[in-house]
């Protein structure tokens, strides 16, 4: 009986360790540059339907993730998200207000944000949802843009680690 209990304990401990490994947090840290050839049509270039930054600088700790998004001749957008999903202010260029939140969902990082700015037809509010997946030296971001009076659109961009 004691021997059986010991075997079960060892099996349980082994199972827990395997589970912990499976649940290991993905690490998105690094400098990522957009790959034109791997990304879906119309995400780079002069005026894509959904704008993706040309470079991402990411620093991740066990509790938060800092992201600086840079685009060619555009002002950078940065934020430090806590990974518990708390809402944070995004440092956006002048004239833009943006809040966002991030959460790890299995092997993905999900960032949702709301951007608002004024325009000649009144205030514009745009919602974004980004799903990040890292695979070795490749980062894939699927981004959905939703705006009042418009159907949501989704595009995918692939970044290479540099």
């Amino acid at each position: 009986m004691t021997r059986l209990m010991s075997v079960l304990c060892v099996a349980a401990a082994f199972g827990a360790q395997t589970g912990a490994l499976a649940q290991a947090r993905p690490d998105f840290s690094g400098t990522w540059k957009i790959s034109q050839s791997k990304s879906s049509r119309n995400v780079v270039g002069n005026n894509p339907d959904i704008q993706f930054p040309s470079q991402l600088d990411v620093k991740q700790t066990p509790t938060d993730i800092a992201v600086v998004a840079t685009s060619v001749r555009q002002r950078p957008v940065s934020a430090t998200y806590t990974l518990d999903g708390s809402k944070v202010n995004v440092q956006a260029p002048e004239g833009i207000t943006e809040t966002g939140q991030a959460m790890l969902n299995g092997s993905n990082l999900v960032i949702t944000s709301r951007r608002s700015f004024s325009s000649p037809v009144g205030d514009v509010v745009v919602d974004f949802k980004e799903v990040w997946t890292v695979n070795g030296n490749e980062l894939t971001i699927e981004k959905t843009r939703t705006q009042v009076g418009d159907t949501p659109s989704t595009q995918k961009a692939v970044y290479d680690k540099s």
Partner: protein
Amino acid sequence: MRVRLAFATIFLGILLAAGAALQAHHSFSATYDGNKPITLRGKVVKLGWQNPHAHIYVGVTNADGKVVTWEVESAGPTTLMKQGLRKEDFVGAEVIIKGYLAKDGTPTVNASSFTLVDSKKEYVNEEKTQ
């Protein structure tokens, strides 16, 4: 002497024309804000069907009920025609435009795509240059 003067005049004319074309074909990022995407819906009131960019003027009703005329910069006629759009399709048509706001705060956008509601004809920007 007269021949020289004629050549000089022609050369000056070419220089001026090239300068105007370059100014018309400006960089996206110099004029538009990539961080400010916008979707507009309204009726086309006027069309500038010329190279290097067609300009579509669209009446959009704002929250106060006032109609604001927006200038929408698009691809040139050749690109639009390749995507099945003709000059006759525009004026009076209802259009949904996705694009980016001008940096100067004027009602001007650069279209990344648009759809003519009734005819369901679409334009998608496929330019791949930065």
